[in-house]
């Protein structure tokens, strides 16, 4: 990445410095990155297929901190919700009383000067992560107590609303040893245009903890969303993330999982459904640092119209990480002639006793199957819907919680008429 001293970023010059209690050293590092890093161009390898340069020509504002109603975004059988509007906590729309004993869920703004004592995410000149830190509106800290178990996930709703709004939002999550819990995070839009959600997650899964995260992105087609998620797993832990992108204009998900302890299981599933001129880019990294772990990665996308998708999945198996089973797969269906996909599964293996596989497929729907279905009386449209639903359904079925699964089903049914019986 090009480094120039004292770069000024006009597109965020209207945003105020954060009021969240971030540790001075973290803030200083972020400010340093911000002033020395330009918006990445497509000449930067990690941004080769995703153009963000035009963001620099825009002018973002801080948004309002409330909306009239979040009906339609609530999910059954979840705890909460904790609601954030344009990155800011809305006490009026939230229900913290339903959070179970054993879970602490607090807005960062309520934690005073000690809200973010450290950060696990090295900045590495990551501009958007630096902006997130320097201009952090608010976020949530969730702590699952050691040994505590919870069937119902905590629901966090993030609403973007208004014009040219930028929301810098952070989730910090600690899953205590031997705990079992989960979270559903909904990113949604309400009367917004040209917004920019810049969100980060820092997730620590301690020894023997089990944690599921359903991340549902359903923002408007004019919105930009950049997510930077960092996960660290200790020994014997199980971590599952399902990233479902239902809508959004330009979506970039950076997901990086560091597996530090032995005997861990890591599951990363992703589905993305695009039409119009949407662009969705999933960049994932699983870093197996130690032996005897398994990771399963399945990302699938359906691309229509002029939409474009990017999948870049990297799995590292370090030198001493023997007996690793790592599976990675990306599948895409193109429904139009003008949609496109760039898929790049990568394995970097330094150990010699491992079982790893990766694969990538991109194609059209099976015409023989369409003929077969039509020969039984289905219209061509029904036949195509059925095949698309079946294709993407493989990932949707993996969503951890029935409430989020139902929500995804209903959005896909309303938007595309897809049916998943």
């Amino acid at each position, binding site marked *: 990445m090009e480094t120039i001293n004292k770069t000024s970023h006009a597109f965020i010059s209207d945003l105020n410095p954060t009021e969240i209690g971030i540790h001075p050293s973290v803030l200083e590092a972020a400010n340093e990155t911000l002033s020395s890093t330009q918006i990445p161009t497509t000449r930067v390898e990690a941004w080769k297929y995703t153009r963000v340069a035009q963001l620099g020509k825009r002018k973002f504002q801080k948004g309002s901190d409330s909306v009239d109603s979040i009906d339609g975004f609530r999910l059954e059988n979840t705890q909460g919700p904790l609601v954030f509007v344009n990155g800011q906590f809305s006490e009026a729309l939230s229900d913290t009383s339903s959070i179970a004993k054993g879970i602490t869920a607090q807005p960062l703004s309520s934690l005073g000067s000690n809200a973010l004592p450290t950060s696990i995410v090295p900045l590495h000149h990551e501009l958007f992560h630096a902006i997130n830190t320097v201009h952090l509106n608010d976020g949530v800290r969730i702590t699952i107590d050691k040994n505590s178990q919870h069937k119902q996930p905590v629901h966090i709703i993030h609403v973007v609303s208004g014009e040219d709004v930028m929301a810098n939002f952070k989730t910090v999550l600690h899953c205590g040893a031997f705990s079992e819990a989960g979270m559903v995070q909904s990113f949604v839009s309400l009367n917004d245009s040209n917004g920019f959600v810049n969100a980060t997650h820092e997730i620590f899964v301690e020894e023997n903890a089990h944690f599921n995260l359903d991340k549902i992105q359903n923002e408007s087609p004019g919105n930009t969303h950049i997510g930077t998620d960092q996960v660290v797993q200790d020994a014997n832990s199980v971590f599952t993330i399902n990233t479902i992108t239902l809508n959004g204009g330009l979506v970039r998900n950076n997901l990086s999982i560091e597996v530090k302890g032995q005997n861990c299981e890591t599951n990363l599933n992703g589905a993305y459904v695009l039409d119009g001129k949407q662009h969705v880019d999933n960049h994932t990294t699983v870093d197996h640092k130690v032996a005897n772990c398994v990771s399963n990665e399945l990302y699938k996308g359906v691309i229509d119209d002029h939409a474009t998708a990017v999948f870049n999945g990297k799995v590292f198996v370090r030198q001493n990480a023997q007996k690793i089973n790592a599976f990675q797969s990306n599948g895409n269906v193109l429904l139009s002639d003008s949609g496109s996909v760039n898929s790049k599964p990568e394995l970097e293996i330094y150990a010699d006793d491992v079982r790893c596989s990766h694969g990538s497929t991109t194609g059209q729907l*099976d015409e*023989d*199957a369409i*003929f*077969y*279905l*039509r*020969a*039984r*009386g*289905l*219209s*061509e449209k*029904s036949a195509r819907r*059925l*095949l698309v*639903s*079946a*294709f993407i*359904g*493989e990932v949707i079925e993996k969503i951890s919680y029935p409430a989020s699964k139902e929500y995804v089903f209903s959005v896909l049914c309303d938007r595309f008429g897809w*049916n998943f*019986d």
Partner: protein
Amino acid sequence: MIKIENLHASIEDKEILKGLNLEVNAGEVHAIMGPNGAGKSTLASVLAGRDNYEITEGSIDFDGNDLLEMEVEDRAREGLFLAFQYPVEIPGVSNINFLRTALNDIREYRGEEAISAKDFMARVREKSALVELDAKLASRSVNEGFSGGEKKRNEIFQMAMLEPKLAILDETDSGLDIDALRIVANGVNKLKSPENAIVIITHYQRLLDHIVPDVVHVLYDGRIVKSGPKELALELEEKGYDWIKEELAQA
């Protein structure tokens, strides 16, 4: 029911059907036999509406409709059914979901109400029993991981669910062991009625021991060259097709 007149069909400029005539009435079972390459599967594909064949001449009247002008799905909705020689595997789509969508699309076409979940499931139970298809297979993905026999039974199960006017069984017997053959034949016999008709396209006579045809036709070199009673099938089984070729050469 169906009247095929002087049908000519080509694929990539190669003429396969060369003036085929066939008429099947309601309540009848016809068998079409013939050697490899005679055009049996081409006939089935043309009837179902596969678009890689070019019809250069002739007509097909299906119950008063010009079949060749109809879309694939409309043929099915008007009551034409093809049991595929090679049923397609469709991962992720359950038989149940597929058949409910098919039934409801057909009902919508006919201006009828969608079938209720209860009636649908009752029908699935009844019809799957007809071909001794395990109820579990009914809820599995369409043909995925099915044995050859299960795939063919699934075709007849679909036929039972959709209750077509005209069913064309394209080599449904090939690859079946004797038990599966008996089950498939029993299923078809139970679906036979004075209102519908069945055309069995086959290479072998043995299916016709179980489903007795009213007429047997010999398809050779793109035309029906001989038609006769059910005994003709036995004669073909015994003597092969060479004597037909000789008869034709002499004529």
